[in-house]
């Protein structure tokens, strides 16, 4: 039997470990268009010069031998034939599979901005290592001292962090009225905006780029929706990523925004699985399928997919969005639904000395949390969301700095601290 895996990042690595737990013998082949394994979230640290290229890997050097896998580097998968159970590569090689795992991740979204062409030098995305290496070369060659980042989401802010570490002044252009708009509210954003200002950077909110102005294929300036034209030689396109579902076209694999999978991480076609940023699996809070493009979700989904591929039936119980971001020395962690749009949520807030905590509650259960400059013991909130603990009796304590296991109901904490299972 042959397990074929397309893509070689965290979902794939987890899947491989999981397959090998239950199946020591089957062949495992990996196709990747990359030339090395690297931890994608580390590219901002790489840009900042804080992590060297040889430290970007998150697997042991002998992983391939230990797991007995064949990795085909620089080999892009081009087409899946689900009837014949084959995958063809960019070089028209045809590889058979018995079980297929698609973990191709996400690709940067490129907005159709007037004047934008792929070949203009000075415009970069910020998702893959190869692109960041080109970016570093460009910065060094052109002695870049300033830049514009389009998008103040996670990718934009991570790019900002890396660029600021290189003493590059940034201007962030964002459609929303705040930074990290998916999770942050204005109060949380203000804490970061203050730091940005201190660094000599600028945040242009409720603004978009109307036109990209270039000369001889070189970026020169940007025309903004505000009517202003700003000169720049570097633009980072950080408007987000979308699942890389190109391969699924015409295969019969059901796709929505991402590849739709069931709780076994299997697609509508038996034997074909998907995991990670490309997959649309169960979202814990809504119970519906959604793409949650974060590392821990990819790791968990990959592990579940791998087990099922190896014949060990394993269910994915769903996760919710969460993230940890440190920008300009300001650490923040968020969970779940943080900006509810309807009035049937209760919101607890505390803001003191630059420490901000926001807890979103629905029907006495926590469904969302934002912590800025106050991340200690953050994971307990994740547990409370997952366990749907009734917090009606402890609302007062949730925001206090001594919040911990002791404020939780005795039975609940006893179960978790001294119960069986993952616990002691």
């Amino acid at each position, binding site marked *: 039997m042959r397990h074929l895996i397309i893509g070689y990042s965290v979902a794939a690595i987890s899947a491989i470990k999981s397959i090998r737990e239950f199946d020591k013998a089957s062949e495992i082949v990996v196709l990747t268009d990359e030339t090395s394994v690297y931890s994608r979230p580390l590219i901002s640290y790489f840009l900042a010069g804080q992590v060297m290229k040889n430290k970007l890997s998150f697997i042991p050097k002998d992983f391939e031998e230990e797991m007995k896998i064949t990795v085909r580097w620089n080999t892009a998968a081009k087409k899946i034939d689900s009837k014949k159970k084959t995958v063809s590569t960019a070089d028209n090689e045809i590889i058979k599979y018995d079980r297929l795992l698609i973990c191709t991740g996400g690709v940067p979204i490129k907005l159709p901005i007037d004047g934008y062409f792929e070949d203009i030098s000075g415009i970069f995305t910020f998702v893959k290592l190869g692109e960041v290496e080109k970016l570093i070369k460009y910065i060094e060659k052109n002695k870049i001292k300033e830049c514009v980042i389009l998008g103040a989401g996670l990718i934009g802010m991570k790019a900002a962090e890396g660029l600021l570490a290189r003493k590059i002044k940034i201007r962030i252009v964002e459609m929303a009225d705040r930074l990290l708009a998916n999770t942050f509210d204005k109060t949380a954003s203000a804490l970061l905006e203050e730091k940005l200002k201190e660094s000599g950077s600028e945040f242009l909110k409720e603004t978009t780029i109307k036109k990209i102005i270039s000369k001889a294929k070189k970026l020169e300036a940007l025309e903004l929706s505000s009517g202003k034209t700003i000169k720049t030689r570097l633009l980072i396109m950080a408007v987000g990523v979308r699942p890389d579902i190109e391969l699924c076209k015409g295969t019969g694999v059901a796709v929505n925004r991402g590849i739709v999978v069931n709780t076994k991480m299997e697609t509508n076609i038996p034997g074909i699985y998907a995991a990670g940023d490309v997959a649309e699996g169960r979202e814990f809070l809504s119970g519906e399928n959604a793409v949650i493009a974060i590392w*821990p979700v990819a790791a968990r989904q990959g592990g579940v997919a791998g087990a099922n591929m190896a014949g060990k039936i394993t269910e994915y119980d769903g996760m919710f969005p969460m993230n940890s971001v440190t920008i300009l020395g300001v650490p923040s962690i968020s969970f779940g639904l943080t900006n509810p749009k309807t009035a049937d949520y209760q919101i607890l807030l505390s803001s003191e000395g630059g420490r901000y905590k926001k807890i979103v509650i629905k029907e006495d259960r926590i469904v969302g949390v934002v912590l800025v400059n106050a991340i200690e013991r953050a994971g307990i909130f*994740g547990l409370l969301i997952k366990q749907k603990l009734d917090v009606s009796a402890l609302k007062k304590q949730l925001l206090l700095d001594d919040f911990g296991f*002791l404020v939780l109901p005795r039975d609940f904490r006893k179960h978790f601290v001294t119960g069986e299972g993952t616990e002691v």
Partner: protein
Amino acid sequence: MKKIVIREEYCLGCRLCEVHCATAHSKSKNIIKTFKSAQGRPLSALVFEEQGYTTFALQCRHCKDAPCIESCLTSAMYKDKHGTVLHDTEKCVGCWMCIMACPFGVIKPDLKEKKVGSKCDFCTGREKPACVEHCPNHAIILKEYR
């Protein structure tokens, strides 16, 4: 394997576990030197909780499927062959994914150094974890599992 079990009903709230934990993880291994050093009070690798008269010390549960390992971007968080969850400061970049993932909230960030500041290592190398050894009322005990 052996695991640390905490029994809050026996905890006196003396915080000796915290003192001895910090000492055991200090350079000097000497209480006075540890607490009177120029760097100030060190972090212990356990979390001491207190609400009124109820107290207990919580340390890493060394989970079987550890969420901190799953979330770690650099594989700085790892499990050794005994099942102890350990942390490699060399690899750590301080992304705080582990702080986000740990359901017990027992990993402490060192925000200045941008590295995990302290985390229970089961006192690897010692015969008995320091918190267990020095608890005067057996509120922290070692128990054999499986």
